[in-house]
């Protein structure tokens, strides 16, 4: 016990500190490599920071970030609104699930990029097409994770719900929903990651704002690679923040049991 006590804070401190140390080391190495290189293939970290500063000063930073978040939010919310209920229904009615499975398996390996021509054909050039690309990239993973979440609800919990005289609707609300929530949240987090991942592809369709647009535009209009890398850094940073927010939600009381039971399964 006493050994544990003296051991724990140190690892906690380390787990707080080491990720930043890694990041600092990367920046240092990056900077060093650029300084030592005769013909650098990449702008250095300072140039990238200056580029971000320049964007912020001209008001472009907020504009591009908001534009990207706006498209991702709509595409993702649409995918959640359709994919999650679809997955739950398909799991509830097993036959539907069996019929749907091969379609999912076929469509899933098709990259969101492949949908760009059709998106333009259907929705024209603009925001709607970008939103559609983000939607199409995240809707199937969401449906699949909702389906597997329902499939993983223990029959014991179903039966316990029925035993206490609950009507099907009450079982859905008081047993099914809370039972699938932890797994579903993991699916939601991964899908949000995918939605954010395709933002660059989605903004390649001649829109005139967003971080994806910034990257394409900076290259086309004068090879501003410092701005290209600045866009990449911003996308990565926002991705980390989105992921962290979703992980926070997963750890709310009433949901945390998902972690406890997953740990128990692993131990068994």
């Amino acid at each position, binding site marked *: 016990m006493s050994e544990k006590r003296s051991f724990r804070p140190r690892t906690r401190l380390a787990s707080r500190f080491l990720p930043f140390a890694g990041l600092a080391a990367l920046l240092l190495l990056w900077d060093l490599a650029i300084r030592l290189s005769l013909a650098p293939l990449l702008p250095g970290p300072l140039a990238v920071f200056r580029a971000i500063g320049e964007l912020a000063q001209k008001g472009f930073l907020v504009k591009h970030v908001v534009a990207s978040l706006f498209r991702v939010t709509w595409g993702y919310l649409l995918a959640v609104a359709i994919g999650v209920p679809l997955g739950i229904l398909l799991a509830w009615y097993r036959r539907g699930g069996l019929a749907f499975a091969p379609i999912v398996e076929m469509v899933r390996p098709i990259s969101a990029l492949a949908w760009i021509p059709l998106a333009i054909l259907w929705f024209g050039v603009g925001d709607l097409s970008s939103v559609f690309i983000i939607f199409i990239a995240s809707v199937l993973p969401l449906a699949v994770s909702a389906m597997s979440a329902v499939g993983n609800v*223990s029959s*014991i*919990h179903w*039966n*316990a719900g*029925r*035993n*206490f*005289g609950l009507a099907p609707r*009450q079982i859905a609300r*008081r*047993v099914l929903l*809370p*039972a699938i*929530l932890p797994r579903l949240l993991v699916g939601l987090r991964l899908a949000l990651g995918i939605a954010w991942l395709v933002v660059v592809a989605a903004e390649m369709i001649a829109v005139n704002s967003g971080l994806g647009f910034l990257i394409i535009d900076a290259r086309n209009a004068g090879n501003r690679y410092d701005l290209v890398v600045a866009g990449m850094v911003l996308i990565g940073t926002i991705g980390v923040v989105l992921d962290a927010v979703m992980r926070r939600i997963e750890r709310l*009381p*009433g*949901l*945390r*049991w998902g972690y*406890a*039971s997953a740990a128990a399964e692993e131990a068994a």
Partner: protein
Amino acid sequence: MIPAAESLPGRSKLAIRGLSMTFRGELDDVRVLEDLALDVREGEFVCILGPSGCGKSTLLNIVAGFLPPTAGSVRIDGEEVRGPDPRRIFVFQERGVFPWLTVEGNIGFGLGRLSRTERERRVAHYVQLVGLKGFEKAYPHELSGGMKQRAEVARALAVDPDMLYLDEPFGALDSITRLVMRGELLRIWQTEKKTILFVTHDIEESVQLADRVVVLSARPARIRRIVEIELPHPRDLSSRRYLELRDGIFEEIGLAHRI
């Protein structure tokens, strides 16, 4: 109609007649239960004892209304069982508590129809009864196996059922906790006067708890024998009669009492 196993004093609660169960498999049908007949009196504590995989859980699931039998009937208070019913609560192994609800939330789960104050009063009462005071706000993953099991028993008792069905409820607990839990279950049974069907593969457990032990054969399960345990509670686990009854069942199942 097949006559009851014997005529019993006390009002009959549960009557099982000609009960058979066959699971349809892809290659072969699996006969699990064959022509069972059993009567249980009101307030009686009956253990159903059999080797693992003999179909005793299936029997309990049919009696509880979760599974329809292939043939035969289950009647409770003269009424055919057609589905689960809140008057008869099934207690699973410790995994039966809802992990997304606190102890309080679990115990109050079946009390949705009551007023808030009545619900709180009942939850508090059963928290106390099963010794979980101070853990009302704890989630199941923060509790030990024995505490989870207590919470589940309390959840079952809170809706004031006439019958409890327990499916190897203490199977996952360590042997000390198991003994404590048996004592508490007996105490609760004596104060709350429920009819209890208790499935177990543990011979000692059945002789410690039950008024009668129904010994099942291997699959397809038939009733081999019904052993009356006439010992008063609290039972002396080293008394001659206890050991006789226990060894009788050991022999019935065909186990040498030596290791």
